[in-house]
């Protein structure tokens, strides 16, 4: 693929064992093949490590690629490097996560994806349609990785919505709690399972990742029927789709990762070939509900969703 | 003199930066007890470590009963019938006395391919006996070796070697740390080796002990053999002069 001479690097904050980012990678690789570009995606070794991402970015830029695609998980850390890259004529596109100031916050030329906080907000909103119409509402928010921005921001978005929801329904008893739910199916299952034992009247559980798939299994093992405890989270991985089919997971936010990998490459291609400037792409609020599950399952198996 | 049981020819051993053995050749006659003496750092322990497989010579050959022997580990040496008491006690401090006595040679209730269930009762009983044999007084065979006094540990090492008597016994300063009574036991034991058709190598810095129980004296200095005579043909003074 070297022949075309279009060099694109993609650096982000996640490690190779993260299924979501593997879907992005697939989109990225597929697009690169289509446009005959020489592409490289660089994962971090530690999930969510900004400093490793920055180091990878600096190393990749030393090769003077034509374009840099990157998630901008921190408002400041990447500013210097991105400024310099743009000055050196590298096309920089933000993917998946943008600077919280948007276009003002960093030198990136466009953004492809969807913000963490808005995603969390829309998850909460979509789920609220399933909330019981009366009686108290008790919500559990599982912060998968306290202190890591992707998790905190998504959780924050959910809680923002809950606050708004409270204001909108002043008469009702609405409470929420956050726990450290862990980034491992088994751990999340155990912790949330224990919590639900202590609080069987919990209305809904929000995970900031996809680890609530394991919670669905716990509920099933306990013979609790689907819908008694509402489950929702982020990213469409096969486990979650499976649990949507069984009815335990009600709402899932899909960022359409394949698209997040695919589109920026095309934009770079167009920018290079036709001088078209990259533009923002919203990869969708992507709220997925169980009725779409079967169709998604097929695509999911191919790594397209 | 019959065929030697062990012959070493021109052994050389280098430690990084130290030439510890500089061409040692020696024949050990069957059923003879050799007293190996020499200054600190003469190379005595190095020589016997090579025979017991702890170290590998850099040059030279070892013959066992006339046949070239390749000793590349303690197991090989044991298989050839060499039993050793090392200068630094070879005990595992975190294990009990009974288990230490039988390390690597545990009595088994039944075994498949060398592995099996240890016969704990037999092990305990035999170790009580072995320890009593060297006149050592210990509370129980279940005490940890790490909790023994210096002499008690050495006593256990000796009990082990005496229990697993073999064709060739090598004792590297076995009487260090031992009380008078036990020292006498050890001397008596070494002296009795001959009668039991065992060849012995006894290292000690105590000339009296060496002359008391050995048939032949080999003195080493700076990695070489400097004297090799039968006890009858030499004297403590002569030996001390060479060193």
């Amino acid at each position: 693929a070297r022949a075309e001479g279009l060099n694109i690097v993609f650096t982000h904050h996640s490690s190779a064992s993260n299924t979501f980012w593997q879907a992005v990678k697939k989109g990225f690789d597929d697009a690169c093949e289509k446009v005959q570009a020489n592409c490289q995606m660089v994962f971090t070794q530690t999930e969510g490590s900004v400093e490793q991402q920055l180091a990878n970015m600096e190393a990749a830029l030393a090769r003077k690629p034509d374009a840099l695609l990157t998630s901008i998980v921190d408002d400041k850390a990447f500013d210097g490097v991105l400024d310099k890259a743009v000055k050196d004529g590298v096309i920089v596109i933000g993917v998946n996560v943008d600077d919280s100031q948007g276009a003002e916050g960093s030198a990136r030329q466009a953004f492809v994806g969807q913000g963490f906080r808005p995603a969390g907000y829309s998850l909460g909103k979509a789920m609220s349609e399933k909330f019981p119409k009366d009686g108290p509402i008790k919500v559990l928010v599982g912060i998968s990785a306290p202190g890591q921005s992707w998790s905190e921001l998504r959780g924050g978005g959910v809680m923002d919505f809950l606050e708004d929801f409270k204001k909108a329904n002043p008469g009702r008893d609405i409470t929420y709690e956050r726990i450290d739910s862990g980034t491992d199916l088994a751990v999340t299952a155990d912790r949330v399972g224990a919590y639900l034992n202590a609080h069987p009247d919990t209305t809904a559980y929000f995970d900031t990742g996809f680890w609530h798939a394991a919670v669905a299994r716990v509920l099933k093992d306990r013979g609790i029927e689907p819908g008694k405890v509402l489950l929702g989270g982020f990213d469409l991985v096969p486990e979650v789709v499976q649990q949507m089919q069984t009815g335990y997971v009600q709402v899932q936010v899909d960022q359409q990762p394949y698209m997040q990998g695919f589109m920026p490459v095309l934009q770079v291609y167009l920018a290079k070939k036709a001088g078209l400037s990259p533009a923002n792409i919203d990869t969708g609020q992507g709220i997925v509900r169980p009725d779409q599950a079967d169709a998604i399952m097929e695509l999911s198996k191919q790594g397209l969703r | 003199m019959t065929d030697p049981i062990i012959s070493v020819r021109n052994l050389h051993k280098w430690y990084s930066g130290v030439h510890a053995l500089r061409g040692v050749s020696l024949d050990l006659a069957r059923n003879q007890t050799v007293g190996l003496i020499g200054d600190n750092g003469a190379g005595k322990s190095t020589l016997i470590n090579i025979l017991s497989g702890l170290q590998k010579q850099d040059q030279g050959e070892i013959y066992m009963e006339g046949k070239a022997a390749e000793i590349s580990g303690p197991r090989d040496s044991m298989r050839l019938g060499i039993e050793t008491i090392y200068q630094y006690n070879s005990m595992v401090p975190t294990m009990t006395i009974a288990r230490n006595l039988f390390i690597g040679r545990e009595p088994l209730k039944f075994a498949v391919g060398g592995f099996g269930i240890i016969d704990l009762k037999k092990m305990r009983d035999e170790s009580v006996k072995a320890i009593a044999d060297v006149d050592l007084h210990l509370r129980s065979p279940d005490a940890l070796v790490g909790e023994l006094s210096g002499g008690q540990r050495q006593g256990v090492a000796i009990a082990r070697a005496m229990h697993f008597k073999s064709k060739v016994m090598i004792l590297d300063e076995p009487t260090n740390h031992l009380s008078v009574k036990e020292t006498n036991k050890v001397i008596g034991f070494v002296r009795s080796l001959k009668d039991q058709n065992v060849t012995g190598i006894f290292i000690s810095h105590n000339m009296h002990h060496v002359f008391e129980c050995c048939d032949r004296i080999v003195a080493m200095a700076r990695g070489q053999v400097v004297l090799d005579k039968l006890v009858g043909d030499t004297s403590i003074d002569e030996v001390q002069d060479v060193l």
Partner: protein
Amino acid sequence: MKRFLKVYMEKPELAALLLLVILVAIFQGRSDGIFLSIDNLRGILGILPEMALVAIGVTLLMICGEFDLSVGAVFALMPMSMAVLMAHGTPFLPAMAVGFLVCVVIGFLNGYLTIRFAIPSFITTLGMMFIARSLTVVISGGFPPLLPADLPTWLFTDFVGPGNVIRMSFLWFVGIAVIVSMLLTRTNFGNWVRATGGFFPAAAAMGIPTARVKIVSFILCSMLAGFAGMIQVFRLGSPLPSLGDGMELQAVAAAVIGGASLNGGIGAVLGGIIGAILIRVIDNGLVLSQVDANWFKFAIGFLTIFAVVANAWLRKRARSIKVEI
């Protein structure tokens, strides 16, 4: 009585047991009795075998004087190999055999490299952790295959027993624990493991095949980790490449809490198990006690240190009881 107390409390695994009982009592109180409810016990006992099996392997290896950081990655790699093979049509049993073979190879490499080049197993297994994790991602192509529906998972994950509190995996775990424990205390191999870890030069001098003993321990440890991972995947239904992340440190912590020494030679299978239970109980109990997300790790860290400190203190007290034995 005094004598009994002394002998009993001097064993680190039993001191840990006492601690466990105390902690359970506290959590039972703080959670308004929910901690020991059938539902919660079912949760704890469901996940326990997986962690405990890993802890058993690591304890064995630590007694042998070595260290394995690759267990977490092997935990993921073994079931992933199986899942990938099965997704390509291999039947269950051959797939499982290949899975275990992978564990054996990794364990062997860990041991062989460590011994052949006399390098610390910390490094060998740290490197192996990266390698195994990477392979997990590579063979899955990034996308974990779904498990076929007709697997005999009931053999590992079905609930059994009175009140359905335990899963089949618990029986496997108990069986394996008993076997490994017997192996360590009653067989000559166990004696060699302990000697090799206790004082290597002595073990070598006494003709123990120390290299083989270590390599076998590494292999056993890897296989136990792989087996545990397989059980977890059957329970959760999906082989994620990120499974078992961070388990390596937890397993070592479990072994140490249960009294195993990082220098080798000291430890007991029971101790490793109790350590694993303690860690699970702490984790679960803290959720029930409604610790805030941000403080959760604090509480875990604090209680881990506390458990070991209390254990050390209890043993010291026991040692200073003046009874002749």
